[in-house]
């Protein structure tokens, strides 16, 4: 697994695949406060990128900007080279856990069907083509066997698979997932990570996964976008997750520890400012969560 990742990193250094998403100097202010500050990065076809940052680092805001739901104060976002149009079939989005009631009469296949045309007015007449697209999307995420169960009765990992099928059925070029690993048990977490890695490579989709904890993504992550204090650094894990880069982002010294293939980011010894304390706490919490 690790060897595979390193091979990909070397490959990507030689020839970058086509850029799917370009975020260019984006700043967002909410009630005068800078939530995102001059954030730039690109992500590429067939790659899996981790968007790493503690809670409140601006991950969800960044997603809202990419989806066109929040207007940036400055900067621009383009998908496949063009700005965001009103309905953007190029972007698939899986929000953080959406609480679905067990008594909601909605099978997994119905939800995936909504992913195909849920934004269109009127109702969909049953057609063979539609059914096959839904079927293929469900099988693509190994969700075929619970396609006819109510979505609300499925486990967290199963629901996450269905949501991924929902987002992929319209064949987007970019797939955004907001904390898809939160609240999953270890096994489901691993399964979802492997699935997303497969999706990126087989369907040539650019996948962006936000997480407050990067370790589960390390084996599959091609690139990382690290968010802290509204600012971002991007590149390969080796390029970004270094004390110099992260210290600059956080605005105080942090150490990066490698322990048994895991990476732990901790505030360095030169504590003093309240901000540093907060950052340390946030990271410690993130590590505990993982």
């Amino acid at each position, binding site marked *: 697994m690790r060897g595979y990742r390193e091979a990909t990193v070397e490959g990507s250094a030689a020839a970058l695949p086509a850029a799917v998403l370009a975020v260019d100097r984006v700043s967002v202010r909410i009630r005068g406060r800078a939530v995102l500050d001059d954030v730039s990065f690109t992500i590429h076809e067939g790659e899996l990128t981790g968007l790493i940052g503690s809670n409140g680092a601006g991950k969800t805001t960044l997603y809202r900007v990419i989806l066109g739901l929040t207007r940036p104060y400055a900067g621009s976002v383009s998908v496949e080279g063009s700005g965001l149009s009103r309905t953007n079939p190029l972007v698939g989005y899986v929000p953080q856990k959406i609480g679905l009631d067990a*008594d909601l*009469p909605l*099978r997994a296949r119905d939800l995936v069907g909504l992913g195909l045309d*849920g*934004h269109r*007015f*009127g109702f969909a007449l049953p057609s063979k083509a539609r059914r096959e697209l839904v079927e293929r999307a469900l099988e693509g995420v190994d969700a075929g066997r619970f396609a006819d169960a109510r979505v609300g009765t499925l486990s967290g990992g199963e629901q996450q698979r269905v949501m991924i099928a929902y987002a992929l059925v319209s064949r987007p070029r970019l797939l955004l997932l907001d904390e898809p690993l939160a609240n999953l048990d270890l096994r489901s977490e691993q399964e979802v990570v492997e699935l997303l890695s497969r999706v990126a490579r087989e369907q040539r989709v650019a996948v962006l996964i936000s997480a407050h904890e990067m370790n589960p993504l390390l084996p599959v992550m091609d690139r990382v976008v690290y968010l802290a204090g509204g600012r971002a650094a991007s590149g390969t894990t080796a390029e970004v997750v270094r004390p110099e880069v992260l210290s600059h982002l956080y605005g105080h010294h942090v150490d990066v520890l490698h322990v048994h293939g895991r990476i732990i980011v901790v505030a360095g010894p030169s504590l003093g400012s309240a901000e540093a304390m907060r950052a340390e706490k946030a990271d410690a919490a993130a590590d505990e969560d993982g």
Partner: protein
Amino acid sequence: MSGIVSLVFAPGFFSSAPVRSAVVAGGVVAVVSAVVGVFTVMRGQSFAGHALSDMGTTGGSGAFLVGVSPLWGFVTVSVAAVAAMELIGIRRPRGRDVSTGIVFGAALGLAALFLYWDTTVRNASGAAMTILFGSLFTVSASTVPVVVVLASLSLALVLALFRPLLLSSVSPELAAARRVPVRLVGIAYLLAMAVAVSLSAYTIGAILSTALLVGPAAAAMRLTKSPWATLLLATLLGVAATLVGIVLAYDSYDWPPAGHGWPVSFFVVTLVFTFYLLAGVPQLRRARGDRLPAGRGAVEESTIRGAGKRVES
């Protein structure tokens, strides 16, 4: 054979003009209520439905006072109420609760005054009974086309909104990410609900209209897994309750105590409630541990409940 038919359908049932009007108006209203009601239940808006029909009461009783069909009063006021609730802030959950409560309290106060005047000034002693509890048999033949047109409008609106409405009922967040105008869809849906609720308030009574709106949908949701199956079953149950209710009410003219016939609304609502209870039976059996395919949710739930009991005892 004809003996059984005449036992079920009392003599004169098929030739009675009020029965004909009741069957057409009741059937059409049942269809709209059921379809609109499925979304009401999915969106957790049955309180809003109830509030709309209560506010409609003001319109219904006011219309009665000036000699217009109560139907127009119901429709005008409940549609206006949607606008008012939207303005006062139906979007924030707490604001929604309080504003709806205050507005409909005031509206019911007015209804009390109008109903009092209906009975004293206009000498219509049955007004309160008709407005609050309705009677399908008093639907005049001339109103039936109006009922059909309004019902078609409401139904057409819901069907036109179908996919974005379903998506935003499942998750407003998913819908917003697909650029569905979630708020606009919500308001348009409330308008369709206002018309549906007015129709059922007119036919089976303001107080009972929510039963016809929510009951068939809730029963159907217990038995089906997909949105379309729920819509179809809810419609079937709603129509069945209404038609059987009409037959029973017609038969009840020969029943004690007075030989005046029992209210249709009583039968309709009781049948809806019975359907709801019966629809819960399979769930109960599942909860007892009779494993059914795809019943995993219920099985887990029963395990948890069982575990809870052990801890308690």
